[in-house]
């Protein structure tokens, strides 16, 4: 409760500061709208459904691309950790591509797939995949070899060892890799939505883009706020429970 109050007070303070700066008329209200106009835009956009629709479209794209990236990335990471030849080939590729900012995939996706959902999907997958591969690879490599030895003496081998020992032992790394993958997926999708204008679905990125086209700063700022809130919620809902579980089991963080 105390933590909640201090957080609430902090953000209320930020809004007040914002309002005060606007009232000082340092900048044109076209460039810096007041919190009130942004709030009005958000309320209006919620009422007429544009905001929820856009969020739903965006989240659907994000989830599909993200899940696909994980499903593909986990086994690839296991392969690079297990086989030297995969490490020297696939591992190097993953390392290289991970350093490529995901927005750099957008031009290529546009030419390959046109202004389509496939282009979006491709960009999100590319944003997610490589960091998941690298996190899984790192995770498996940092497992103390004693676990696999102990498991072998108890009769575990082959697939059983991988599923029951290596994967859970690498879980802390995999979860942080998934979290990083999520962050990358989120960034790349926003970049894709801003660049790729398509008719099959109007996402948050598009809303942001049209806010700029229309010079509607309250829309730009309002949508940015929504993007931040969704990012925060995803962290709290999707990853915090896992992390709490891991910390409790592994005893890696204060109570």
């Amino acid at each position, binding site marked *: 409760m105390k933590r909640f109050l201090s957080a609430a007070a902090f953000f209320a303070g930020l809004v007040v500061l914002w309002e005060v700066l606007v009232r000082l008329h340092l900048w044109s209200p076209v460039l810096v709208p007041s919190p009130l106009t942004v709030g009005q835009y958000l309320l209006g956009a919620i009422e007429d459904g544009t905001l929820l629709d856009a969020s739903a479209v965006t989240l659907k794209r994000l989830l599909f691309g993200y899940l696909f990236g994980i499903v593909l990335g986990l086994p690839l990471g296991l392969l690079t950790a297990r086989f030297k030849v995969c490490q020297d080939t696939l591992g190097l590729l993953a390392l290289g591509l991970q350093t490529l900012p995901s927005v750099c995939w957008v031009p290529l996706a546009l030419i390959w797939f046109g202004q389509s959902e496939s282009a979006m999907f491709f960009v999100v997958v590319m944003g997610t995949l490589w960091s998941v591969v690298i996190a899984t690879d790192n995770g498996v490599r940092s497992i103390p070899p004693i676990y696999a*030895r*102990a498991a072998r*003496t108890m009769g575990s081998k082959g697939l059983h060892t991988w599923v029951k020992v290596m994967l*859970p032992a690498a879980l802390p790394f995999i979860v942080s890799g998934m979290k990083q993958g999520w962050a990358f997926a989120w960034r790349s999708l926003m970049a894709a939505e801003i660049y790729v204008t398509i008719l099959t679905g109007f996402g948050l990125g598009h809303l942001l883009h049209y806010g700029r086209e229309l010079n509607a700063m309250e829309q730009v700022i309002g949508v940015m706020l929504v993007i931040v809130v969704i990012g925060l919620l995803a962290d709290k809902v999707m990853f915090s429970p896992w992390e709490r579980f891991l910390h409790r089991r592994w*005893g890696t963080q204060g109570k």
Partner: protein
Amino acid sequence: MTVQTELANVTPSKLSVGEISKRFESKRRVVQALDRVSLDVAEGEFVCLLGPSGCGKSTLLNIIAGLDSADSGTLLCDGKPVSGPGRDRMVMFQEHALFPWLDVMDNLLFGLKLKPGLSNTEREEVARFYLRLVGLEKFAHANIHELSGGMKQRVALARALAPNPRILLMDEPFAALDALTREQLYGDIQRIWQERKKTIIFVTHNVREAVCLGDRVVLFSPHPGRIAEQFRVDLPRPRDINSVTLAQLSTQITKALKGHLGGQEEVGE
């Protein structure tokens, strides 16, 4: 199979190590870890392998466990050649090697689940039996990191005993514990050895520990790893590590050990 028959004592194995050699090669040098080592262990015997680090005693234990393979020589367990790890030979390592993603109970169940012929409720009953045996029945659902070092090794012992092996291989399992905890565990391991009728091979570099636990102390000398001398320990059990007779025998073995080393290396007493 019922829980009763599962928990019944199995006959301990006899083990025969014949002329086993093992070399480790790296770019810089070649280490002859074991040089034609032969050793016979009787059913239910408690044998301590004693020597300074690098004398090959842990290598021999790993080969018996089936985790490593010998370059040459024979290894027979009850007359049958050993190839790879098996449930009849369980290992307890210096690090507890418990799985941190499982609680105490699930750690015990890990090996039991790989053992066919039992239902899950029977497996849990078996696991509880061994938790009671090491005095940790109240900690069935504790996380591993919540246990003290001594408790972790007790759980590791219970986990190694749970599949009812015929041989227990212990690789300096108490080396990382404080003296007081270690003394308690000496008592426990002697009691459990007598109750559960196991053949135990125990690796240590601590002379007193070896004398306190073993029916026989096998002295190794390094470079290359060979058996230098063997001592039979006929002191009555349960033995107390602080007893005078035990200390006298330890001194004698320490002297022998120093003799084999040519006084170059430190040995803990």
